[in-house]
């Protein structure tokens, strides 16, 4: 086991909704290996986004522990979460700017992100003038610009049309192969998890327990129309309805 592997043990989270405590996460445990893609799955409202926010330090768990909590986090949002008043290059450089990185260094990093994400020519464009796919490319660029320890993605392709989503999934795989980043991604699509992941963690309905932690047996590159692929999708789907 790599020393940067994230080990989650018995995490519990309760919210107070109008003074009534509601248990969102009852008992979640799993391991996310360094340099791997781990997909968190579960029906909507199963606490997987809540868990991702705890991991990102946006929220605190009530009980349990996380070993090797990542410190430098790149987070990609479902609805992109781009600052509407900043241009593409300013959005990508935001994290570095907050760290007081010299402007020349920021410009260099931003330029290389723009180039590798196919955003050339849109440097001075505002997010609202971009298509959904382009916006999420900016969101990914902003996350990668800070050279994070881990990339957390919260249903990053669910607001996109299927063709764009497929394009960005392959783009994410290329980035992962190039950088070797640890990736934890929330998704509700079994096909997406089967295509991208090294391992899959399935959350039960609220209050969330870990239903299963399974390794993805498929070798890469993956053929989404092969028999093996469908078998994995079926297996995930079966766990999801448990």
């Amino acid at each position, binding site marked *: 086991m790599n020393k940067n592997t994230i080990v989650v043990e018995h995490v519990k989270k309760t919210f107070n909704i109008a003074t009534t405590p509601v248990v969102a996460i009852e008992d979640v445990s799993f391991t996310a290996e360094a340099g791997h893609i781990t997909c968190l799955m579960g029906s909507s409202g199963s606490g997987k986004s809540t868990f991702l926010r705890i991991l*990102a*330090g946006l929220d605190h768990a009530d009980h349990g522990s996380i070993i090797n909590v990542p410190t430098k986090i790149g987070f990609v*949002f479902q609805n992109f*979460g781009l*600052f509407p*008043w900043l241009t593409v290059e300013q959005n990508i450089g935001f994290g570095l700017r907050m760290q007081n990185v010299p402007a020349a260094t920021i410009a260099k990093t931003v330029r290389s992100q723009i180039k590798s994400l196919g955003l050339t020519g849109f440097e*001075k464009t505002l997010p609202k003038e971009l298509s959904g796919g382009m916006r999420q490319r900016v969101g990914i660029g902003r996350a990668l610009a800070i050279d994070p320890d881990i990339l957390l993605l919260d249903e990053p392709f669910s607001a996109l049309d299927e063709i764009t989503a497929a394009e960005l999934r392959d783009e994410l795989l290329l980035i992962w192969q190039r950088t070797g980043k640890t990736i934890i991604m929330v998704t509700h699509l079994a096909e997406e998890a089967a295509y991208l992941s090294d391992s899959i963690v399935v959350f039960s309905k609220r209050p969330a327990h870990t239903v299963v932690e399974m390794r993805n047996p498929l070798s890469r590159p993956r053929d989404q129309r092969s028999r093996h692929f469908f078998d994995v999708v079926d297996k995930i789907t079966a766990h999801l309805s448990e």
Partner: protein
Amino acid sequence: MRYNYHFHSKLMRANAPRHMMHRLISLLAILTLIAVFASLSQLHSINYGQFYRGFAASFSRVVISYLIAAVVAIALALLATRNRYFENTLLPLLDVLQSFPSLALIPLLVSIFGRNSIAVIIILITVMVWPMVFSLIGAIKTERADLAEAATIYGAHGWRRLRHFILPALIPALLTGSIVAWGQAWDSLVGAEIISTVRGVGTYLGSVSGKHQVPTLLLAISLYLLLIFTINEIIWLPLLRFSTRYQNE
């Protein structure tokens, strides 16, 4: 900026004819009023020097009051939405204060500060602060959660958060609140100046009285209207157009 400007100018061009028409008609209406009243009164019946000096004094009071009111409004709105405790205690308080008739304070303020600009400025602040406060609170409460999360994750804390996230996110709401605030300020200004008798456009209007002065008064009011219209055209409309950059979608 190049691409922006291009996009923006396209957007503006699409709406330009209607906007131009709208503004032209407003301007024509005001000019017609002035022409009619000017012909009814003798043109020199109005003391232009006194009128414009008065207006300049009034305008500077509105500007000073606005700057103070804007800072107070931002602070109050941020405080009132900070957590549930503040929201439960501060919001009802702001609601009561908002409906307080500001002009009723004038005799009190004049007794404290004497007959000078301070009393008028304080009144204007109490008038201008509310539209901005409530516009800002509305914007904060409907803010997209993911933007705040992105700001936190990417390291916008403390003053840096205020400058790079909170204030830019509030610019559209601040601007719409400001426009309402200025409108109400022009209104209350006249009353506040007449009661406190400091020099200004309000006191000028108050000083021109008597039945035979009606056309002169109407002329002065039309000129006041023209100046307000001009200020809206050269200050607020361009700012409003600029603020679309700060809006989602």
